[in-house]
């Protein structure tokens, strides 16, 4: 597969990682950090392969909004998109973690839901939906989890303002000087 060879070319210094090669997707490894870069359309198949390969648990699902930033440490053959869903898995036998970074375009922010494969991703995906507005297809109850149900917008997107307001001081002496003072 071309992706494999290209990924191998990308890291000439690193030894070939058989444990990461077998999923047929580009990968990178530095220290204890192991990352694979599955394509969005192949995400669920990759997840099934991960499950069958002994990655017991989906620890974390989150996302990053690279509005106009360069993605750090992204292989050159992967087209960068605005959103990136990041899922972390852990294996008891190997005692290591694996991270998957999936590019999700702004025009169609959808990705398959891990719920049927790793049911523990339920709340995590709801949080990503709430904070980034990324839809997880096949999720049983994709609704807001942290913000109120009628909230507008997705707060962790980079084009969503922090929403800080100037601090107001009530009854401050400056505004209402004492009479006769």
């Amino acid at each position: 597969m071309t992706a494999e060879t290209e990924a191998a070319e990308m890291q000439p210094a690193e030894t070939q990682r058989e444990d990461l090669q077998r999923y047929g997707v580009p990968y990178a490894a530095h220290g204890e950090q192991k990352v694979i870069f599955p394509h969005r359309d192949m995400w669920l198949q990759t997840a099934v392969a991960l499950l069958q390969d002994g990655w017991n648990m989906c620890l974390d699902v989150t996302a990053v909004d690279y509005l106009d930033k360069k993605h750090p440490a992204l292989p050159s053959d992967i087209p960068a998109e605005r959103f990136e869903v990041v899922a972390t898995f852990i294996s008891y036998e190997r005692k290591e973690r694996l991270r998957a970074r999936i590019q999700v375009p702004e025009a169609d922010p959808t990705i398959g839901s891990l719920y049927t494969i790793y049911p523990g991703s339920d709340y995590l995906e709801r949080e990503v939906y709430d904070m980034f507005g990324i839809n997880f297809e096949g999720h049983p109850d994709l609704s807001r989890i942290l913000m109120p149900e009628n909230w507008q917008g997705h707060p962790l997107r980079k084009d969503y303002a922090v929403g800080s307001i100037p601090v107001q001081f009530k009854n401050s002496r400056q505004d209402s000087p004492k009479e006769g003072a």
Partner: protein
Amino acid sequence: MGVVHNVAEDGFEGLQHNFVTAPLEKLVNWSRARSSWPATFGLACCAIEMMATGGSHYDLARFGMEVFRASPRQADVMIVAGRVSQKMAPVLRQIYDQMMEPKWVISMGVCASSGGMFNNYAIVQGVDQIVPVDVYAPGCPPGPETLLHAITTLHTQIENGELLRRREETGAGANITVEQLDGQGQSQMVELGSRT
């Protein structure tokens, strides 16, 4: 010594100083200050310190406040302990409205008082935008000593306050009205918190 059966005959000397006279207002305020039960309204980190204040070392019972009431109907003081999120704000207001008059609010910690370090979309910048606050306790989180000081400050306020009317400057009072009979046989609504 002895029981005075008839003050008019025996005179006040018969009581031998075993009585106290005071305005009713002072008496009621005094008793209110000494048994102001707090509502459990722990939100965040400050709630842990609030519970620590209720623990054996700091002993909130010294101030007649060890009875944390789960039901707002039985509580007098609401200690807003922690940051108030936009999602929590309506709940907080509802609980405040459910409390019986007279009621007081302590804003515990900077998050409750002004939003603190979290000046963002999620946090209400000061609980005084939702409910009237009597005492602000600074700190992040305020130690039990600070909370105790806030409580004694509140007690002083209660003792020096007026019986029926709430503070003018904050316009507090949760819109409770009492019927006042003016002797003309016809009742007139008086809103607490205003002089008219």
